């Protein structure tokens, strides 16, 4: 019985391969985008964990300066003498062979075994490592990128990308930090008899092992962003599944009844149906995971570039297929399918055996249901508004976004219903009136797909507006920020002094850009020097300022902080006070925007800076000169001091580099956007294809009354265009609100800066056209089929054998 029943159920799909294909494709796409995003996140997190584990940092406690930026070698010597088993580490960012890397200097003799040096130094051993010119170790891909570096770098396993490990002495030379250390690693087993830390080095404090890593925290918001996108695509995909499954159940209802009437127990029918769905879900899920792997592999380099550009996080640019990933992909496909089919399963379980099998009530959507839907939309919109007023944090931001999008999706059919009704009332001819009435009749069958289209379009407008606003603000800001015509970085303080002397008579001004690294409001950041010069006063945009901020900074009476720091620590001009690392506490006199920088930053007047940080390297300078003189000046500098090319950058070059980083930053978001739109297109196609079978009954009377097939097919195309067009119009305000939320709420939470919103109507026109193309493509196949359908097929509608 069961076997016969299964055969009867499955024969449905044999007769409708297209419907089956739509179901599988929809589910596979949904799974693909979701698991692709998960793969990217997992890969990036693995990289963070690896970085956090470098040299055993995740397992070893460390001694760090309590407030100064670095430790002296003398501290290390004193602690060793006092019985402490510690190992020195010097860490810093620098450009090596044209690539920015993190150099980590270690002492192989004192390093604890947990640092895992044994693996690095096998083979040739330590010989080349410690003796000048030295030898570095890096991950194979990093080592390959650094082939052009002066230093010999050997590939080694167990090092995160972007990190080069060298001997501490070599690190001090490379980073030009003689006698300095960043921190000391503490051996897990310490001799009982050792002096108190407070007695030997009172300015140091001990920190527990850092297992998560600063990067994982910093980049959380970015990954949440990706996850949200993946989830959106998944939800859109489930719309397809929901409508395809719903239709299959609807069409098979007479079969269900017959089977029940023939004696198949209701339980058995449910088991068979669930088994059928599970088999479909596993098939589509497997396809989806494989596809998701492809998506991840294509997107990963872009994600790696984004993370590098935004957070300085080094992430491997490739994806590894992990088993847990297959499992979770299949699980989500299965769960999603069952969730999408829950309503139909429930209805089937309660299906009375005897009720007459009626043809589907094609009803005009009940206006009561529409009113309910509108009510739900209003409630959700209110939730979003309340969250915007009182909510805080990234989670509230995303919840608000979700509520907003869902509200818009629910309201769409109501809006379309009203618009189509009005169009019908305004239409004159019989064909036009029928066209609008019939379009309205299609709404129940198409509304899920149209909602998906709305979400995809709104996401496109929202994200597009954010990226373009960002771009416009960023380029404008760069123009102001990169006020100096030329930037010069010397290799040593002595060379810097010579360069300053050489430049002084030849230029209008030489502005020192010196900095120290240190903790600002509990996070690693930088304190910069700022000269008392009109360049800054005239060009630097301050988003918040007290009286005469530049004068007060020059006089050493206050500091300027970047927006990230101001927002994170609540430091604004007026009452904010900043505790400078190893320096005094000063009032905040202004806040400047600092896009693209993940770290807190402060600016101190040049005089105070040199007084508080006499040891800070003094190597980087901005040069003011007539633009025409810049090329000669740059060439002269390179010749006179034999400076490598990257050390002399003109304004245009600096802008180009910054913009390139920016562009890479948003390629991933754009790619996800396009993919989501693609999924929505497939959803529309799926709905139109599945509906086209039932369309005949609605079209045949019109055809019989004297409208040719070709004309009907053209009208089908117009119908899809009209619906896509109205949906695109509705998506515009939704997208703009979305953009506002992204710019004013999510961005502030995620990156620490707020951007002014700009609108780009040309982009809307382009996207509107894209929506129409999507609609036309989705409607093309069903319309073509209608144009070519045999009249006998249409006539069958009126015959009793239907």
């Amino acid at each position, binding site marked *: 019985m069961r076997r016969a029943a299964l055969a009867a159920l499955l024969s449905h799909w044999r007769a409708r391969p297209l419907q089956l294909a739509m179901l599988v494709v929809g589910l596979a796409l949904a799974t693909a985008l979701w698991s692709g995003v998960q793969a990217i996140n997992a890969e990036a997190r693995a990289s963070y964990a690896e970085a956090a584990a470098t040299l055993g940092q995740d397992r070893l406690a460390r001694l760090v300066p309590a407030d100064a930026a670095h430790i002296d070698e003398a501290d290390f010597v004193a602690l060793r003498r006092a019985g402490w088993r510690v190992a020195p580490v010097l860490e810093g960012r620098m450009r090596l062979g044209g690539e920015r890397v993190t150099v980590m200097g270690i002492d192989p003799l004192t390093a604890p075994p947990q640092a895992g040096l044994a693996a690095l130094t096998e083979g040739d051993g330590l010989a080349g490592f410690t003796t000048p010119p030295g030898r570095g170790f890096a991950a194979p891909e990093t080592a390959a990128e650094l082939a052009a570096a002066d230093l010999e770098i050997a590939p080694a396993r167990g090092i995160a990308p972007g990190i080069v490990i060298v001997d501490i002495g070599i690190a001090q030379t490379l980073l030009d930090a003689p006698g300095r250390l960043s921190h000391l690693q503490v051996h897990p087993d310490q001799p009982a008899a050792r002096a108190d830390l407070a007695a030997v080095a009172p300015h140091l404090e001990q920190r527990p092992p850092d297992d998560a890593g600063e990067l994982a925290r910093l980049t959380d918001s970015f990954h949440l962003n990706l996850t949200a996108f993946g989830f959106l695509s998944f939800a859109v995909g489930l719309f397809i599944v929901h409508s395809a499954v719903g239709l299959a159940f609807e069409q098979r209802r007479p079969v269900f009844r017959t089977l029940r009437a023939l004696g198949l127990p209701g339980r058995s029918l449910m088991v068979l149906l669930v088994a059928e769905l599970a088999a479909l879900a596993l098939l589509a899920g497997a396809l989806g995971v494989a596809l998701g792997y492809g998506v991840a592999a294509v997107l990963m380099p872009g994600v790696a570039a984004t993370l590098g550009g935004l957070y300085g996080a080094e992430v491997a640019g490739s994806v590894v297929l992990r088993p847990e990933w297959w499992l979770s992909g299949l699980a989500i496909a299965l769960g999603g399918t069952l969730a999408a089919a829950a309503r139909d399963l429930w209805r089937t379980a309660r299906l009375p055996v005897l009720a007459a099998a009626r043809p589907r*009530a*094609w*009803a*005009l959507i009940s206006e009561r249901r529409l009113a309910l839907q509108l009510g739900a939309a209003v409630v959700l919109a209110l939730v979003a508004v309340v969250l915007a007023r009182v909510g805080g944090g990234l989670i509230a931001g995303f919840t608000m976004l979700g509520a907003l999008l869902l509200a818009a999706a629910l309201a769409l059919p109501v809006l379309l219903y009203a618009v189509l009704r009005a169009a019908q009332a305004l239409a004159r*001819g*019989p*064909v036009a*009136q*029928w066209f609008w*009435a*019939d379009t*309205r*009749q299609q709404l129940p069958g198409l509304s899920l797909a149209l909602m998906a289209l709305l979400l995809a379009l709104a996401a496109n407008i929202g994200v597009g507006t954010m990226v373009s606003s960002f771009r416009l603000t960023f380029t404008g800001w760069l123009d102001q920020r990169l006020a100096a015509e030329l930037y010069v970085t010397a290799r040593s303080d002595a060379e810097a002094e010579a360069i300053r002397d050489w430049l002084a008579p030849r230029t209008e001004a030489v502005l020192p850009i010196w900095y120290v690294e240190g903790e600002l409001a509990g996070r690693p950041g930088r304190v910069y020097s700022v000269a008392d010069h009109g360049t800054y006063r005239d060009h630097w945009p301050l988003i918040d300022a007290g009286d005469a901020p530049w004068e007060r900074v020059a006089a050493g009476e206050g500091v300027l902080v970047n927006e990230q720091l101001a927002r994170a620590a609540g430091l604004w001009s007026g009452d904010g006070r900043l505790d400078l690392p190893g320096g005094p506490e000063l009032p905040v006199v202004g806040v400047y925007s600092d896009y693209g920088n993940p770290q807190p930053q402060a600016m101190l007047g040049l005089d105070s800076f040199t007084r508080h940080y006499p040891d800070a390297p003094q190597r980087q300078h901005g040069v003011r000169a007539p633009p025409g003189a810049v090329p000669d000046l740059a060439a002269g500098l390179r010749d006179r001091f034999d400076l490598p090319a990257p050390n002399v950058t003109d304004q245009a070059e600096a802008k180009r580099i910054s913009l390139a980083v920016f562009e890479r930053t948003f390629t991933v978001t754009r790619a996800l956007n396009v993919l989501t739109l693609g999924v929505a297109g497939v959803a529309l196609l799926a709905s139109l294809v599945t509906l086209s079978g039932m369309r005949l*009954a*609605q079209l*045949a*009377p*019109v*055809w*019989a*009354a*004297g*409208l*040719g*097939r*070709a*004309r009907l097919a053209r009208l089908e195309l117009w119908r899809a265009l009209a619906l896509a067009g109205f949906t695109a119009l509705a998506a515009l305000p939704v997208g703009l609100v979305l953009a506002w939320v992204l710019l004013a709420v999510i961005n502030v939470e995620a990156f620490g800066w707020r951007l002014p919103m700009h609108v780009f109507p040309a982009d809307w026109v382009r996207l509107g056209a894209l929506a129409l193309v999507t609609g036309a493509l989705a409607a093309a196949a069903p319309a073509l089929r209608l144009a070519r359908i045999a*009249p*006998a097929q*249409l*006539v069958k*509608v*009126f*015959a*009793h054998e*239907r």
Partner: protein
Amino acid sequence: MLLEIDRVEKSYATGDGMLPVLRGVSLGLEAGRSLALTGESGSGKSTLLHLAAGLDAPDAGAIRVHGRDIAGLGDTARAALRRDTIGLVFQQFNLIPSLDAGANLAFQARLAGRHDAALVRDLAGRLGLADFLRRYPEQLSGGQQQRVAIGRALAARPALVLADEPTGNLDEATGDAVLDLMLALVAEQGAGLLLVTHSPRLAARCDARAVLRAGRVA
């Protein structure tokens, strides 16, 4: 002659080869007259009616409406013929589900550019539909639906009315009433009526009768 069917042949392709349905059928119908076409189920009555309506094309033979052969017409010309000259009533599913009864009644007449509001009002009244014009087809009973379908076919004042078991889905009393109305209205408008039915009782009420058997008119 309003409708002339001349040695028409039609076969359908089926799983096991061609199935000949009509093997040289000839019929004639004058304006203002009614002809009942009977025959067993599957004898090809509907097929013949579809050909006469220009819904489908015959394999051989000629079908002339007002003396013009419609067998070779293209899709658009055939649609125009249905719109301007023919009123069709089927057994069921005649109505456009997205339009209400009023709009359905006037649809073909407006399509043909012959809309006459007074006529539609009059038809609606006589068909007993005046109270139901704002209802949608699925809100009407089968008998009401068939009355709307007849009204729609006649509102366009077609020269030729083709009806395929128009009362097949109705109970006997309702069916008789609907048919009476149709015969009366056709007679008033001077149109020709080809009525397909398998009921000899209904066939008896037409001016003439023809029986289809083994693909020919017996």
